[in-house]
């Protein structure tokens, strides 16, 4: 680990900014995981419901 390399340092200003972001982070506000569908699909089942019911 190169924890002290200057490149790894963040400025105080950035740190304050990140502290603000962290609050949002704990609420999973700043990471959004998006899953594409595993298969091709048309619209989700239409408002008529499942025709096989």
């Amino acid at each position, binding site marked *: *680990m*190169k*924890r*002290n390399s200057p490149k*790894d*340092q*963040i400025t*105080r200003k*950035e*740190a304050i*900014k*990140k*502290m603000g*972001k*962290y609050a949002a*982070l*704990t609420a*999973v506000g*700043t*990471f*959004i*995981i*998006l*899953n*594409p*569908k*595993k*298969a*091709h*699909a*048309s*619209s*989700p*089942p*239409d*408002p*008529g*419901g*499942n*025709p*096989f*019911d």
Partner: protein
Amino acid sequence: MKADLSPKYVHKINESIVLWFEHSNRYVVTSKSTYPLIKLFLRVENQSNFIDSLSDSTQIEHKAAEDLYLEISNFLEDANTPLEKNHPYSPSIVIPECHTIRCYDFDGTTIKVNFQTDVIESLIHPQIEHHLTHLNSNFNIEFDIFKTGDTLQLFKNKKYLGSYSTESFHFLQGKFALELTNAIHNTQADKWIATFHASTVTNNSEAIMIVGDSGNGKSTLSALLMAHGFDVLTDDFSPLYKDMHIYRYPAAISIKKGAFHILEVYLKDFDLLKTHTNGPKKVNLKYLPPSSKFSTSKSNFPCSTIVSVKFDSTKPSELTEVSIQNILETLIPESWISPDDTHALQFLNWLENVKCYELCYRDNDFAISKFKSLFDI
């Protein structure tokens, strides 16, 4: 370095950072200010290194840094976890006799479809009925669609293509749409970057993609734009090819009853279209064929504009430029995007040059004039 958890691609798109994870084919959208924390997590060897590094460079408290490490760890584990696969293939399936046989013509390509029942036919036929032709034995491709128990089966040229539970019939429709697209454009399934749950309109030079949650008026707006001289390239299913063009999918636009009165004003003979009653809820729909003739229309267009639409009668009409995150939150979960790493990279590169807008409207004329102006940009 936690290489196993690292995203394969990291793209800066305006103010957002989009990550792609190869193991799961998942996308993550985060901000420029949060991403360094993920980078730090991936770079350090363990939690204590992470905490030390953060406390050296920020005034974050030990406990908060500890929580942050765990949170990023859980998040990255999630982002890397593949979703479950679909139905396995059972080789014992025998194609039954199908009662409804149809042939469709797409500029000389004849598609024969054998539907086992009328209900199964209702999943596919109304959208492509305007391509119906006489039954003949000189077809290019044959599909069989039938049901075994609670599972829908799709075969192409008597070979298995896929199985879908009856409640997931929209996946069968999607697979059929892709196969039909392949047939009419003479290409193969592995050449597509994505099939978006979106409609696409064109001015015969470029395309604009329309996204939005179901019920937000994508199809109605497409039909309105068609009535005002635009060409509807696709409705509901927009395939993006490896040349990064959207290709024509000439299905009819499905219009729900609530929009009938709007379109009757603009489209001659709209009221003469057959009204279909769908599903146990007996919802009325009309299928509006595209105005452009498939055989003489250009088959594909570049697309560098996406508009998220929302019909809302309670708010003033407004078109605003929005972030890629705003669009991706709607687009990705509703679309298939190729898990191939080259395709994922092409998709991300394409996104970098896409302009994103949100159109909230209650006034149809406003929406149409804004689309006209977007094509002029």
